[in-house]
């Protein structure tokens, strides 16, 4: 089965859901979310049946635009898994959503259908981004994802925060698109190509203007920096993450970031491989990584809103990921004690998926049943809902990078790469950032375990069966890949 069947199936699934939503009278729209999650789960299983490029020798124009390598497949699975969990979260979140879309009619479920269907289309876009190897293809897939997110971020239209987030995301998204198009134009102007492999060859020959090539790289880096949340293009992240509906925040912070990184990996590869500009590109990446590490971690310290805290944590993790990218060896020579930056980044993003979605799943439950997102809402959670408190404890430990968790291994590889490339300043900043991480992640743990609940008579938080299964599987994943990272290495 060729790899692009997966995207086709996901798009068909989305269209089917739209038709079901419009024509089948559903008693409870939540079944639409289960249906979508089921479909995505099936595609996730199908992704293991996809033929590798060795088996299917493809030629022609299409295969030049579309990679079917292991890297693409890995990020397709990340997109699918994220969407699956986001759909589960959305089903739990529907009450809050309804409160801010149609408060006058408590029985109506109008509008919920779109909220369960749009993530499926976003997923198709994210999967395409993982395979895009042509600048035009990258641009179109990136826009397909961003357009869907514009709608989803501003979905709670009676909530000022959500609207503010939507407007900010729209304006800055449009700005970053402008940078991307301008960068692509320059790159096309100096190389005459839009395919990344062809661009790589032209840049390797070195018969291009160095200034123009660096300018093109800087423009594209700005655009992708917006997507992955690199400093100084991070300023939209805290507000948008805080205002958007919680499942969509999770989607943005995991799915969008992972897809942004795979595009960044693919686009920066020709620049790093070219002897002409390699050292300058590494310097730019190093500076951006250092700034992201410092800003993300230090700005997270004073946060009292848990969702905002996770937004800053998402910036700081982008810093660690960029640190790995900046530690790419110039000639592609990897010493025997190291691993390739591509596998380090991929493993880190997979680990990031497990721990971040774990935190967001618990936060969705607390938000819908305790009614708040500040750290105070988590006070005494260990007494009322010990299982959720333990889950969040594990997520926070992994995010902070405690050994035996997947988060630790991810950070370990990143530091290993940076040390091998003698980026000692970056290592120092990373260590400071990781230490700050321990402080702000454990703030939530302190609230859960050492502080009295706000309302002692509050009932235990109900956890639906699918959510409980998802939580347990994610916890298992955090520990298994924390002990043996090999299955997730590219």
């Amino acid at each position: 089965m060729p790899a692009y069947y997966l995207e086709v199936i996901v798009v068909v699934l989305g269209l089917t859901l739209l038709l079901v939503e419009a024509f089948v009278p559903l008693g409870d729209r939540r079944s639409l979310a289960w249906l979508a999650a089921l479909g995505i789960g099936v595609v996730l299983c199908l992704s293991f049946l996809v033929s590798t490029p060795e088996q299917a020798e493809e030629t022609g124009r299409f295969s030049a635009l579309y990679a079917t390598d292991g890297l693409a497949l890995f990020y397709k699975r990340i997109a699918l898994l994220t969407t699956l969990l986001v759909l589960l979260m959305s089903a739990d979140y529907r009450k809050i959503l309804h409160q801010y879309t149609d408060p006058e009619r408590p029985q109506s479920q109008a509008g919920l259908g779109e909220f369960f269907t749009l993530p499926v289309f976003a997923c198709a876009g994210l999967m395409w981004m993982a395979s895009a190897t042509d600048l035009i293809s990258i641009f179109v897939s990136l826009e397909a994802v961003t357009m869907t997110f514009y709608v989803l971020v501003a979905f709670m239209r009676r909530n000022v925060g959500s609207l503010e987030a939507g407007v900010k995301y729209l304006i800055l998204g449009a700005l970053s698109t402008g940078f991307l198009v301008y960068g692509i134009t320059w790159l096309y102007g100096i190389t005459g190509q839009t395919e990344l492999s062809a661009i790589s060859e032209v840049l390797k020959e070195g018969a291009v203007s160095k200034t123009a090539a660096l300018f093109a790289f800087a423009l594209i880096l700005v655009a992708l920096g917006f997507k992955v949340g690199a400093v100084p293009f991070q300023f939209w992240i805290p507000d948008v993450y805080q205002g958007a509906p919680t499942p969509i925040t999770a989607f943005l912070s995991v799915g969008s970031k992972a897809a942004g990184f795979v595009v960044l990996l693919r686009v920066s590869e020709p620049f790093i491989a070219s002897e002409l500009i390699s050292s300058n590109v590494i310097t730019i990446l190093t500076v951006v990584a250092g700034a992201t590490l410092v800003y993300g971690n230090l700005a997270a310290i004073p946060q009292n809103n848990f969702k905002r805290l996770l937004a800053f944590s998402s910036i700081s993790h982008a810093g660690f990921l960029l640190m790995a990218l900046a530690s790419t060896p110039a000639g592609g020579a990897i010493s025997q004690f190291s691993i390739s930056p591509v596998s380090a980044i991929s493993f880190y993003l997979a680990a990031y998926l497990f721990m971040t979605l774990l935190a967001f799943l618990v936060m969705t439950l607390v938000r819908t049943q305790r009614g708040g997102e500040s750290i105070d809402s988590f006070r005494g959670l260990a007494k009322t809902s010990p299982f959720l408190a333990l889950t969040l404890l594990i997520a926070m430990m992994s995010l902070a990078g405690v050994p035996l968790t997947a988060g630790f291994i991810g950070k370990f590889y990143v530091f290993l790469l940076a040390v091998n490339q003698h980026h000692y300043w970056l290592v120092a900043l990373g260590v400071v950032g990781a230490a700050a991480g321990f402080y702000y992640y454990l703030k939530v743990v302190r609230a859960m375990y050492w502080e009295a609940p706000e309302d002692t008579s509050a009932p235990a938080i109900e956890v639906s069966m699918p959510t409980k299964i998802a939580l347990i599987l994610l916890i298992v994943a955090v520990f298994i890949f924390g002990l043996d990272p090999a299955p997730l290495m590219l």
Partner: protein
Amino acid sequence: MLQEYIPVLLQILIAGGFAAAALILSVIFGKSAARNPTKDSAYECGMLPVGPGQARFSVKFYLVAMLFVIFDIEVVFLYPWAVTFNELAAGAVEKGQNFFSESYAFFWGMTGFLGILFIAYLYALKKGALRWN
């Protein structure tokens, strides 16, 4: 190479210079007479404005506008496709491959695009996007 752009530079300089000169000269030579409300009113320039400047429109206009854009894009894609269809089809037939192979991608691509648009249209119709009460 850059010399080719000198006319553009001159154009910019003249345009900017003319605007600046007009402003500066009017400040120097113009009479700074006392202003009053009558003098500031729209004189021989249409009616005096009545009511607020920002009217509210029904959201239905936006729905119709969005649907228009979608079907406009459909035409934008269909037209060049229809013009080159014979050529593409002849090329595909010459290769003699299966109807579902990559050489027929031009046909399946457009079929998929139209299919997606059709389903979106059904959805909009069912949701009452074209109902106007």
